[in-house]
């Protein structure tokens, strides 16, 4: 078997078999899932009073009552009185200001030609709970059905079925607009950037510690009498890189599994009931399918708006690039010192760009098209993190991605070369802790 493969295999297996790896790998996605579910439940907590302005553009559902100087529904029973949940009616959309001024919480705009479009636009500022929106949906559905029935003559069952309306609530956040989850998507992007940051930080440090261990235990001399130092270094970097990819892959699979399990539970009605109870909803309403449910959840809806295939494949590419770049630096530092306490000084030039890139990536989330985000998505030391944000927010073109990957690849190649030179000299040097000047000299030693 190829010697590098042997080294990769040892590095990989010795780490994957560790208890700490298994625990971390299994707990990671559970932790994520827990956080997400918690986040959803927090947004569900909707105890606020609702005042809903129903806009009846076609005049199908309401008539003007001159005495009360107000529009009242043709079907009063369709809009039953509830505590803290009141409908008001008008025939012209009064504009978003009634919400921003705080007079109303939502506008339910029954579109022109509702029999055909079957659409109601629901505008709001703060996200309503699912119980509120499905209540509105039901009420409006029955009102529209009633209006249809009233206008029809001789109703038989066939006609009745035709008259039955399945309204679609088109939910619009008046601040963010329709389907514009830019912030949330940037959040997902920075989530990926954070994962890349931690993976580089964590697994790069593994590379460094592994090399220090080989050096202090002195086994390195035995090994480089069998393989070239470059093979040993790359074997270690690649082996540990596979450990990181394994961990990530298991996280993805596990998350997908959790998604499917929750979905199945949901569609079987079990979860829906418990959620309904927890949200004070009357149970026994028609079962929703999971996808629709998710669409109704603003927190989740944006998950569906992300191109996951692109996101995950770019994560892999940028992780490999960033990891290779930084871990070769970590390898050079590991080879230069005798023990971990000596690494402090030499780590600074690795840590500074790493943390800086992290900060830029987080900042880019609020302005993914800004100058800093654009520039640093090409700089190889920061592109793996910053580019994830830009890809998530869909503010990047194909050629930009290709160019950024190209620059990263060339830099990686260069960095590995430089690291290998330092590594080759460093692993056999004991005693004094080398300074930068010394390391610079090592670059030019002949083998």
């Amino acid at each position, binding site marked *: 078997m190829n010697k590098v493969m042997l080294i990769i295999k040892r590095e990989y297996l010795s780490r994957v078999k560790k208890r700490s790896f298994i625990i971390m790998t299994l707990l990671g996605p559970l932790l994520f899932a827990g956080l997400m579910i918690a986040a959803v439940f927090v947004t569900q907590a909707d105890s606020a009073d609702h005042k809903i302005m129903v806009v009846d553009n076609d005049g199908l559902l309401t008539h003007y009552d001159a005495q009360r100087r107000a529009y009242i529904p043709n079907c009063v029973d369709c809009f039953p009185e509830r505590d803290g949940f009141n409908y008001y009616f008008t025939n012209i959309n009064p504009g978003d200001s009634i919400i921003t001024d705080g007079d109303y919480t939502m506008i339910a705009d029954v579109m022109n030609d509702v029999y055909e479009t079957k659409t109601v636009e629901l505008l709001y500022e703060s996200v309503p709970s699912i119980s509120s929106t499905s209540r509105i949906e039901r009420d409006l559905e029955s009102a529209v059905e009633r209006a249809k029935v009233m206008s029809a003559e001789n109703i038989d069952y066939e006609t009745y079925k035709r008259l039955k309306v399945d309204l679609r609530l088109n939910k619009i956040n008046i601040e963010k607009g329709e389907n514009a989850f830019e912030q949330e998507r940037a959040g997902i992007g920075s989530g990926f950037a954070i994962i890349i940051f931690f993976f580089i930080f964590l697994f790069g440090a593994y590379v460094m510690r592994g090399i220090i261990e*080989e050096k202090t235990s*002195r086994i390195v*001399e*035995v090994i480089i*009498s069998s393989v070239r130092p470059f093979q040993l270094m790359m074997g270690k970097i690649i082996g540990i890189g596979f450990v990181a990819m394994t961990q990530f892959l298991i996280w993805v699979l596990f998350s997908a599994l959790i998604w499917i399990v929750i979905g199945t539970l949901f569609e079987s009605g079990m979860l829906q009931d418990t959620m309904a109870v927890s949200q004070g909803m009357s149970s026994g309403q028609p079962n929703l399918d999971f996808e629709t449910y998710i669409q109704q959840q603003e927190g989740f809806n944006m998950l569906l708006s992300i191109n996951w295939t692109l996101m995950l494949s770019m994560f892999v590419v940028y992780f490999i690039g960033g990891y290779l770049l930084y871990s070769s630096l970590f390898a050079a530092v590991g080879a230069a010192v005798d023990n971990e306490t000596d690494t402090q000084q030499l780590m600074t030039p690795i840590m500074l760009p790493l943390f800086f890139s992290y900060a830029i990536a987080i900042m880019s989330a609020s302005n993914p098209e800004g100058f800093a985000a654009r520039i640093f998505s090409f700089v190889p030391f920061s592109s793996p993190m910053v580019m994830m944000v830009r890809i998530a927010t869909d503010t990047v073109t194909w050629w930009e991605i290709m160019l950024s990957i190209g620059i990263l690849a060339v830099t990686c190649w260069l960095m590995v070369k430089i690291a290998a030179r330092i590594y080759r000299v460093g692993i056999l040097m004991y005693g004094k802790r080398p300074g930068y000047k010394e390391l610079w000299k090592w670059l030019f030693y002949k*083998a």
Partner: protein
Amino acid sequence: MNALEAKAISKSYADHVALNDVSITVPEQSVFGLLGPNGAGKTSLIRIINQITGPDSGEINLFGERLSEKHISQIGYLPEERGLYKKMKVGEQSIYLAQLKGMSKQEAKKRLDLWFERLEIGDWWNKKVEELSKGMAQKIQFVTTVLHDPKLLILDEPFSGFDPINTALIRKEIMRLREEGSTIILSTHNMASVEEICDNIALIDKSRVILEGQVQEVQQRYHANEYQLKFEGNMIGFTNALWTNFELISKKSKEDKHDVIVKISEGKRLNDLLNAVTSEVSIIEARPHIPTMNDIFITAVNKEKEKS
């Protein structure tokens, strides 16, 4: 055929010369002692043979061929600073290191069983190295050095860290390996073991070879017409009887029993010495004084010091 020929090897690092025109020849199936004070350049030479570093100039031939990457599997190297993966199991680790040398897993397993039996360490297979004592770890290290059946073994201080019983055991194994056809380069400061097991030596000092040859021949060379006499009688009478052709090198006395080393000048023989002193004292024993490797080492190194 010679197992190893190093011709005019020079190697310098940034701030010092490690090897200066060093040539050695190691005959096949012999034990070759690579001697020298600390920092003389032995490790540099060993690393060059192991292809860990390359020489600045000079050439190395292994079994008649220019040293190349394919020879890696034919060399077994036990560095002075021992090291194994502490968290790795003994069996797994030995096989891994043999695989790195190019041996197949099955073959390595088979040979490991054999070696564990030979060194009586069969039940260590699943132990982690960190659970072993220093001596036990040394044994494992020796096994990993020979496991891939190398034709050339380079052992740097192989006996350090062993108790006398294990030292004898390892020595026996080294001799057995030589019998079975291996060539061994032994770098050591333990001069007694050099006399016992080395066929040839090279003494490196300050990056140059200052002494080279077969052990007995070197000893002959340094014997320099010296004789050891044991006699009974008057020491003063003995010294008075020595004339200009004889020089008293050392003396040890216990009451009127004496043990001296006398150097005889060029052209004279032991008979001349005996003729000169037999009338004064009664000789108990007379034999040529063969210098120990220890003496030779010190003499040779000191001579170099005087030169410079």
